[in-house]
C-alpha cells in the first residue's frame, strides 16, 4: 500500500510539480534499492503505455469530402459575399466564384420557361403514425396531420431538401456529400445522418427538435438566424418570435407518439408532466413548488393516462381529481 502510494506520487510528479515535502518524502523512500526497482518497473509500464495507439484508420478522403460539403454550406449560410472576397485567399476566391456561378446558373435555370417539377407530397391524415421511405433511403415517420414535401430527384441535389408541416421522426441516411435540410415555416434543421424528432405544427407557437443520436443544427430562419448545434439527448425549442432554448435531457421522449413508450430516468416531475400532457393531449394542474422538483424513474409502455396518474398517486402520494374531460388536478403529496 505504501509502495503504491509512492509510485502514484512519482507518476503524479510527471505532470505537475510536487510540493517540497512530497518531493522529500519521495526521495527518502527511493533510497532503498528495492523501492527504486519498483519505480523502474512502473516507469517501464508508463513508457510502454506511451506507445499506445488508437487502432483504427479514419477514411481521410471521405472526411475531406464531408468537410468540403460543410464548408460550402457554411459559405452560403454565413458569409456575406463582399466581406468574403476581401478575406479569402486565391484558391478560396476561385471556390467562391464557382459557388457564385453555380448560384447564377440555378437562378437562371429557374427563369427558363420549363415546367417546374411537381413536388412530391407525403401526407398522414390518420391518427396513427405512418412510416415513409424517401428516395435516399431516409425513413420518416409522420404523426397525424403532418405533411412532408420534396422535389423529385431531391437526393441528387447538393442538398437533400424537404419541407415539413406537423411532426415527424427522422432517421436520416448518412451522406456527407449531400447534407439533409428540413425547412419549416420558422426554422431550418440541418443534419448529416442521425435520428431525431422535429415538431412544427402550424397551429402551435413553437418549433422543437429532440435529438436521439448524431448532430443536428437548428436555425431560427425567421428570427436572428442563430444556429444551435444539438447533440444526442438535447432538445431545442424555438418559441416563435422569441428565441431558442436548448435543454439537456436525461431521456428523449419526443417520439413517444411513434413508439407508445415513455421513459423517465431521474427526470424532474415538472418535465415529466410536460411530456405526459403532450403525449396524451391533456392538462395536468399541480403544485409546482411542492412537486415540480420531485424525481421520477420509470417506464410506461402503451399505458393509459389513468395508469400514468395512478403511478403518480402511488409514488408521490397525490390525489387525482378530474374536473373537465382531459383536465386533471393533483393535490397533496410530495417527495
Amino acid at each position: 500500500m505504501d509502495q503504491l502510494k509512492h509510485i502514484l506520487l512519482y507518476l503524479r510528479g510527471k505532470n505537475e510539480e510536487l510540493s517540497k515535502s512530497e518531493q522529500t518524502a519521495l526521495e527518502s523512500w527511493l533510497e532503498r534499492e528495492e523501492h527504486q526497482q519498483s519505480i523502474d518497473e512502473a516507469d517501464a509500464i508508463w513508457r510502454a503505455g506511451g506507445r499506445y495507439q488508437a487502432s483504427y484508420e479514419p477514411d481521410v478522403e471521405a472526411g475531406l469530402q464531408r468537410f468540403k460539403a460543410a464548408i460550402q454550406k457554411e459559405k452560403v449560410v454565413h458569409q456575406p459575399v463582399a466581406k468574403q472576397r476581401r478575406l479569402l485567399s486565391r484558391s478560396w476566391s476561385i471556390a467562391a466564384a464557382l459557388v457564385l456561378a453555380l448560384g447564377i446558373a440555378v437562378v437562371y435555370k429557374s427563369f427558363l420557361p420549363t415546367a417546374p417539377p411537381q413536388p412530391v407530397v407525403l401526407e398522414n391524415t390518420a391518427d396513427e403514425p405512418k412510416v415513409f421511405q424517401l428516395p435516399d433511403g431516409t425513413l420518416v415517420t409522420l404523426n397525424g396531420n403532418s405533411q412532408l414535401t420534396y422535389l423529385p430527384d431531391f437526393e441528387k441535389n447538393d442538398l437533400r431538401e424537404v419541407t415539413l408541416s406537423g411532426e415527424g421522426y427522422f432517421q436520416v441516411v448518412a451522406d456527407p456529400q449531400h447534407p439533409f435540410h428540413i425547412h419549416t415555416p420558422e426554422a431550418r434543421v440541418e443534419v448529416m445522418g442521425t435520428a431525431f424528432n422535429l415538431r412544427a405544427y402550424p397551429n402551435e407557437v413553437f418549433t422543437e427538435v429532440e435529438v436521439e443520436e448524431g448532430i443536428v443544427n437548428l436555425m431560427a430562419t425567421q428570427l436572428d438566424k442563430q444556429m444551435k448545434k444539438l447533440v444526442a439527448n438535447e432538445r431545442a425549442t424555438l418559441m416563435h418570435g422569441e428565441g431558442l432554448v436548448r435543454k439537456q435531457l436525461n431521456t428523449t421522449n419526443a417520439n413517444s407518439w411513434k413508439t407508445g413508450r415513455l421513459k423517465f430516468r431521474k427526470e424532474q416531475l415538472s418535465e415529466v408532466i410536460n411530456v405526459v400532457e403532450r403525449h396524451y393531449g391533456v392538462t395536468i394542474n399541480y403544485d409546482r413548488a411542492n412537486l415540480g422538483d420531485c424525481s421520477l424513474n420509470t417506464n410506461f409502455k402503451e399505458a393509459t393516462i389513468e395508469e400514468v396518474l395512478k403511478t403518480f398517486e402511488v409514488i408521490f402520494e397525490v390525489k387525482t381529481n378530474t374536473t373537465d374531460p382531459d383536465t386533471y388536478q393533483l393535490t397533496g403529496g410530495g417527495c
Partner: protein
Amino acid sequence: MDQLFKSYYAYVCKAVFKIIPDTRTAEDIAQEVFMEIWRKRDRFQIATSLKAYLRRAAVNRSLNYIRDNKIVIAATEVALQLQAQGPKAQENLETHELQQLIDQSIDQLPERCRLVFVLSRFEQMTYKEIAEQLGISVKTVENQISKALQLLRAALGPYLGKTLMFLFLWWMT
C-alpha cells in the same frame, strides 16, 4: 486547407478516439476541429506547433463532449484479469507484436480506468484536472491510475523484463 486536412485529419481523429473510442463521434469531432480553423482562417494564429494546437483542440472538444453529453463512463469494478497474451511469453517479441500487445492491453482496461490513464499519460493532465473534467474525485483518479498500473503490469510484465532496455532506448530516440 485541403493539404492541412489531408495531413492531419487522421491524427486528430486518433487523438479523439483515444478519449472517446467511437469512430463516428471521433470523426464528427475532428470535423468540428477543422471547421473551427476554417472559420478563423483569416485570423488564425498558433503559439506552439500546429500539431500541438490540433491535439489540444481535439482533446478539449472531446472532454467537452463527454461533459455536455453526460456520458457515463462505466466504472466497471470487476477486477478484469488481463493476462499476458499473444505469442508465448518467451521474450523476443517483434516490435509490432509488442505494439499490438500494448494496444490490446490498454484497450481492455475498464473504460474509466483507460480514460484516466490516457488523460494522464498522453495529455499531461494533473490528477486534479482529470477529476474536474470527468466530475470524479481526485481519490478516484488515483485509484484508477493505480488500477491501470496493476492491470498493465499483469498484462505486460512478462515482456517488460527483457524489453525494458529496448523500450528505454526507443524512448530516448
